[in-house]
């Protein structure tokens, strides 16, 4: 493993700081528009809630060309009086460094973990650089359960628009909850708090040439923490509003990296999840309140079209994964693709489980296998969008809860197929 700490510029920084109690990491790539706000919120949070603790802010950058790094270096809070009741005792050190390795969020996090390990910190937090809804309170909510309550991993809990986070809602949350028995609502939320002990655990893993180095990092962090028996909590952070991501980004690649990482972790921790039945809530910090959410518009017609094209063209691949019976059911769904079509929960659950099993059995090259799931996922999403369009947030949440129950009640199908 090629450690970032070996680089002289970074080791000099670490030498200068020696050790710290708190580290907040921000992975960035061309986020000049939003990163200033994130850095200010983090600095304010550290100043307001942890004035007596030595803290480090690390921006792990993927080679931005739009002044992101300069903004991180130059951003300071002009008027501390507005937010502080008393002066900060310990300084906040700032590091803005380029990460090495496969370009991706995971590689950026790896650098943050290694610096946290080298500085022997007690608690870390990572927050996305494109957040527009972050407040200083996020820093407290993510770090305090670690520093004061002895938790090792704090997942975020947000209010999100009912159309937002559909990979989470239709695949990752039900699957993670069913497999590992913990109701972590946003397992790939992206903003986490974790202990120094867990950062060391992350550093000890050699996964940086896989999809974990890309979008797979979030599910990997959550699963590693749960499956290895670390103490888990979640913190209510309010609304998650973030900057629109790179328009060139490919959703198919994201789906493939996230689900691929989840399926790979199922192989690693098969002995852990096989015996788990049902699920339990995890301790939740923060005062929960209703928040106004930004409208998310989705093009359900386009999703239905891709689903239709999948039915027409991917028959052989789908039959090899989900079998003739379920393919015929999907084909029947395709023939009544109007605004009222519903993707049966049991069918969707079997599809996700069959894909996990096919991934394990390597019945196709894994990239092809995972990408062939995309039209099915879009069909399911289009069905969800039409189902919840007239529902309020809490009723939409009930629909997700129903899916989770279906996943849990069908777990034997997965366990039996795994043998």
């Amino acid at each position, binding site marked *: 493993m090629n450690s970032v700490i070996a680089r002289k510029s970074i080791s000099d920084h670490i030498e200068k700081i020696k050790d710290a109690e708190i580290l907040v990491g921000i992975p960035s790539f061309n986020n000049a528009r939003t990163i200033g706000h994130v850095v200010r919120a983090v600095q304010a949070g550290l100043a307001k809630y942890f004035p007596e603790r030595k803290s480090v802010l690390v921006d792990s950058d993927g080679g931005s060309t739009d002044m992101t790094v300069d903004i991180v270096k130059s951003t300071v809070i002009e008027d501390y009086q507005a937010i502080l009741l008393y002066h900060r005792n310990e300084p906040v050190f700032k590091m803005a460094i380029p990460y090495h390795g496969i370009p991706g969020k995971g590689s950026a996090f790896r650098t943050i973990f290694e610096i946290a390990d080298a500085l022997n910190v007690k608690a870390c937090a990572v927050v996305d650089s494109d957040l527009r809804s972050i407040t200083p309170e996020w820093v407290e909510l993510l770090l305090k359960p670690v520093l004061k309550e002895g938790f090792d991993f704090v997942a975020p809990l947000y209010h999100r628009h009912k159309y937002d986070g559909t990979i989470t809602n239709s695949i990752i949350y039900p699957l993670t909850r069913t497999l590992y028995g913990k109701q972590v609502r946003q397992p790939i939320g992206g903003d986490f708090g974790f202990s120094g002990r867990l950062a060391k655990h992350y550093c000890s893993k050699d996964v940086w040439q896989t999809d974990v180095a890309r979008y797979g990092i979030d599910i990997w962090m959550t699963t590693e923490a749960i499956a290895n028996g670390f103490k888990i909590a979640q913190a209510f952070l309010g609304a998650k509003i973030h900057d629109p991501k790179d328009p060139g980004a490919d*959703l198919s690649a994201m789906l493939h990296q996230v689900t691929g990482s989840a399926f790979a972790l199922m192989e690693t921790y098969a002995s852990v999840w096989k015996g788990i039945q049902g699920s339990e809530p995890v301790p939740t910090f923060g005062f929960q309140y209703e928040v106004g959410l930004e409208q998310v518009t989705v093009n359900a017609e386009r999703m239905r079209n*891709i689903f239709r094209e999948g039915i027409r*063209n991917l028959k052989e691949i789908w039959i090899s994964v989900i079998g003739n019976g379920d393919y015929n059911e999907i084909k029947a769904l395709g023939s009544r693709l109007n605004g009222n079509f519903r993707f049966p929960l049991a069918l969707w659950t079997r599809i996700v489980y069959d894909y996990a099993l096919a991934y394990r059995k390597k019945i*196709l090259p894994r990239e092809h296998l995972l990408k062939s799931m*995309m039209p099915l996922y879009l069909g399911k999403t289009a069905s969800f969008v039409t189902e919840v369009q007239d529902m309020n947030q809490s009723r939409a949440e009930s629909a997700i809860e129903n899916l989770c129950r279906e996943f849990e009640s069908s777990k034997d199908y997965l366990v039996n197929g795994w043998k």
Partner: protein
Amino acid sequence: MTDFISLILEPLRDVYAKFVRFVPNLLAMLIIILVGMIATRTISLIMLKLFQTVKFDSWSDRMGLTSVMRKGDLWAKPSEAVGSFVYWLLVIAVLMAGFSALNIQAIDHLISNFVLYLPRVISAILILAFGYIVTGFIGRAVLISAVNRGYLFAKLLADAVRILFIVLFIAMALEQLQVAPGIVVAAFSIIFGGIVIALAIAFGVGGIDTAKKIIEKETEKKEEGSKDVEHI
């Protein structure tokens, strides 16, 4: 008259003598082929049993051999695929050994030519096998990508790419076999170039509307990209 009869009988005697000399060779050939075929079948069955005992298929799964085969749309078990490859190799060897027992100069000559030609045949087979895997892999990748992008002619596009690759690999194999290499290269250039030009003309003239639709769709998609990525 006696001379005349002996003139007729002499060739017949010669033929008979040659036949008598040839019969043991023929018998030897038949025995070699018969025993060889039985031995070949037995060896192949033993091999399959051995593969099952050492769990060759599971080993292939772990080592990624199965995955490589699936990439090329080969759905047989790895043990069966290797078994039948060895079987056919042994069949060829047995047939050659059998024919050489005939001791006929022309056949010996043919066999020695065949032996000299064998490396080319093997490399052509390898090219075709490799081509089969690559074509299957690329064809499937194009199909999935096109479907995920919502193209209306995904299957057609994937089939076109498959055909291009099949033409390419068949031309390479024929060139390796030295089957009229000049004509093969020329034919390949004409066919390949023809396909590309035909596609360009078809797309440029016949498919203006389709191209327009695709480009418009792409532009729309880029604008919608931010909505898509927020679905995580």
